[in-house]
């Protein structure tokens, strides 16, 4: 069986599945339950200065559901821990002592003043925790007080605080980035410049989950008013994956270790983030949706997949997909595909036809010999993948790569050679081929 052990900045854990800093990691009783359930590590819910923060007494969560009430996206207006610092520190110490083989990283958020950081760091160090994560991500509440996303959105602040921490503790420093920014590479580079050992991302995304049309207020609402919260869960995974890939392939940060966060719900999500460069993954919404036991599926799935692929340790596939992320201009323009509909598995719903007809290239016929029958017209198909995306049946529509002959749509011979926009004759800024 594959070895799931990870070593992230020297922080060892029996598997790459950590619980992200959030309500599930707010107290000893939860973290102990999580470790019993098999989680490899936790990032303890963000500690702050005393007097401890005050959370709302109304709804803290909002959700996006599918029609059968599967939770697709969640948002929250939680703040950092609302328990006294001393209580958290005592519990962290106790848990670390009881579970020495599990990773315990402590999330921190104090005002942007060196003194505040200098004060809290030794207290955390004293617990025996393995590292710290600087929470530069929370988009609500704390950002209004000049912390969280308010810091994460200013690369100079990110660099400054990272440096203070590196100078004032021996613990590894992970900087948790906000996605509420235009170019996530900027704060990532800043974190690296400040000496941070790693970054973790993404924190939650600004969101309003819905509007209650009876009371004309955002939902959820507290006494008739609502506010934006942090969006997370399966729905945010693509955004997180993109941001992770940007940092993993940026020449300036490509060697910066990443702990990935954002909609990780199954072993496959985890494997994808790891292939995209993450050394560990942090999970929250999946646990908040199904309970801690969900980690069993993740561990067995990852392990079985590694066995199947012949990977014996996670290092063997971490980052393997990164070289295949590129810019649009380098995509092979000579690569031609056409949609193919498997008539055996087609249930004849007609959705491929109507989306192609109404919104794409009118490349799917709906009838043959007077019968309902869906087939691709190669002379019109641009290979866009929309039909595959909307087809309700797995693998019913696939894309066939044409390797010779003529593309009936363009009338051009299939060119087996790679050719991209940088050298394309239509590109006024093309570079001469060598």
């Amino acid at each position, binding site marked *: 069986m594959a070895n799931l052990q990870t070593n992230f900045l020297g922080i060892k854990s029996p598997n790459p599945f950590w619980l992200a800093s959030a309500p599930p990691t707010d107290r000893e009783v939860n973290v102990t339950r999580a470790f019993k359930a098999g989680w490899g590590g936790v990032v303890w819910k963000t500690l702050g200065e005393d007097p401890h923060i005050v959370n709302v007494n109304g709804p803290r969560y909002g959700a996006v559901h599918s029609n059968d009430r599967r939770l697709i996206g969640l948002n929250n207006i939680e703040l950092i821990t609302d328990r006294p610092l001393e209580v958290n520190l005592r519990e962290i110490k106790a848990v670390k002592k009881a579970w020495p083989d599990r990773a315990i990283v402590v999330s921190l958020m104090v005002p942007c003043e060196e003194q505040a950081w200098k004060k809290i760091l030794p207290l955390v160090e004293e617990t025996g925790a393995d590292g710290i994560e600087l929470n530069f991500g929370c988009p609500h509440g704390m950002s209004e007080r000049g912390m969280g996303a308010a810091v994460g959105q200013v690369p100079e602040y990110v660099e400054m605080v990272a440096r203070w921490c590196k100078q004032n503790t021996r613990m590894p420093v992970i900087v948790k980035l906000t996605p509420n920014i235009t170019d996530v590479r900027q704060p990532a580079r800043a974190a690296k410049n400040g000496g941070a050992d790693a970054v973790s991302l993404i924190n939650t995304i600004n969101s309003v989950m819905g509007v209650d049309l009876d009371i004309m207020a955002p939902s959820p609402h507290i006494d008739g008013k609502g506010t934006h919260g942090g969006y997370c869960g399966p729905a945010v995974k693509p955004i997180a994956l993109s941001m992770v890939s940007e940092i993993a392939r940026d020449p300036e940060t490509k060697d910066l270790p990443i702990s990935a966060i954002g909609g990780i719900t199954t072993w496959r999500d985890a494997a994808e983030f790891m292939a995209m460069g993450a050394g560990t993954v942090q999970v929250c919404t999946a646990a908040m949706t*199904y309970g801690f036991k969900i980690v069993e599926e993740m561990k*067995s*799935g990852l392990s079985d997949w590694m066995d199947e692929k012949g990977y014996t340790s996670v290092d063997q596939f971490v980052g393997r997909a990164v070289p295949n992320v590129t810019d649009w201009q380098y995509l092979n323009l000579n690569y031609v595909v056409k949609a193919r509909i498997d008539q055996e598995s087609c249930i004849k719903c007609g959705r491929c036809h109507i989306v192609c007809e109404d919104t794409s290239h009118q490349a799917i016929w709906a009838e043959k010999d007077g019968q309902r029958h869906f087939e691709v017209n190669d002379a019109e198909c641009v290979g866009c993948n929309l039909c595959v995306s909307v087809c309700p049946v*797995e693998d019913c529509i696939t894309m066939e790569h044409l390797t010779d002959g003529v593309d009936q749509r363009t009338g051009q011979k299939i060119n087996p050679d790679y050719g991209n926009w940088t050298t394309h004759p239509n590109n006024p800024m093309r570079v001469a081929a060598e």
Partner: protein
Amino acid sequence: MPSDIRGDRLSPAEVESNFADLHPLLSKHEAYVEADRCYFCHDAPCVTACPTGIDIPLFIRQILTDNPSGSAKTILGANILGGMCARVCPTETLCEQVCVRETAEQKPVRIGELQRYATDHLMAAGVHPFERAAPTGKKVAVVGAGPAGVSCAHRLSMHGHDVTIYEAKSKGGGLNEYGIAAYKAVDEFARRELDFVLSIGGIELKTGMALGRDVSLDALVGDYDAVFLGLGLGATNGLGIAGEQLEGVVDAVDFIEDLRQAPALEKVAVGRRVVVIGGGMTAIDAAVQSKLLGAEEVTLVYRRGADRMNASAYEQSLAKEKGVVLRHWARPEKIEAGSDGKAAAISFMKTREEGGKLVDTGEQYELQADMVLKAIGQAFTPAPLKGANTEIALEGGRIKAGADRRTSHPKIWAGGDAVAGGEDLTVAAVEDGKQAALSIHAALTGA
């Protein structure tokens, strides 16, 4: 009317189509759609309802996350005969009955079919999912290669013990091989599953070896470190009425066994008019299969009401769907011979319940029947246990065993139908075998 019992009532093609898989394997798409309905409940009711305690939410989620082999391992770790149980378990009265989707929509997640999807996937890969622990040097004898015995042997082997199974019949599998309706276990599934289970190694299967005839309990107790008895039920109950000895009156168990072992199903002899007596799964299996073989009229008669039948509502509706007539509240009184001296008719006394007791109404009726199938229960045969030096306590005519499946003899464990309180379910027998193995392992290693 002369008796008319014969084979070839239907063409081979008709019989083949009649006996096709009751629930064909789910396609990947169907499995995904169905798996997506599982809520991954906390302390899931389905798990509690499964005698073997399979982690059902986990295995379904593993299907959903495209890990059918991992899913199968979850299933087989709790129930090594999970493939057969997926086919024959009365899921409608076990896991699926308590599914929260049943509460929400009167439509449970099809747990049995998902279980089959996963286990078939793994078995098709042909790799045994478990490894044996280091050899312990201990030897255990298992009597009976039915679900209880095979489950016990497998778990013992996993723990590093060497196992010898003694089986009286010429093939292993027990009920799964001989007693299950053919359309529930097509393609020799019972044999393939047995091969799969034994492929873990460390288990020797000796067939044609009956306890009390070819090997004695004394000898087993002397030669092995522990003994597990998974004998099953060796005898069938009789009707105790006139005409029972007539030609054409058959034990349903024998009929089903002949059918399962027949090289060509269409050759199996069945009456033109068949009457089945009983209300359990065996009665339903015999009745339905008679119909599928081409019997013109098949009537199942049970002495009490539909709600008291051991066969589930699903099984009863399946029988009706296949054209079996179910009649309730009547007990057989006499089987009459025709001019050819063979069974020709059976007369019934109508019954009703009075203060919980079954009483006759005085009203009678008669059904034409050239074949009468008796399915009124099976009995344990304690004779093979008789040994000069071994003594095992019985209870209600079956072996007495504790929660750890240990009998009154310190070296002997027992499980399955041979044990008092047995549920006559494959899945319950598998659990017995597993629990006995764990108890034996603890006793042998002091663990």
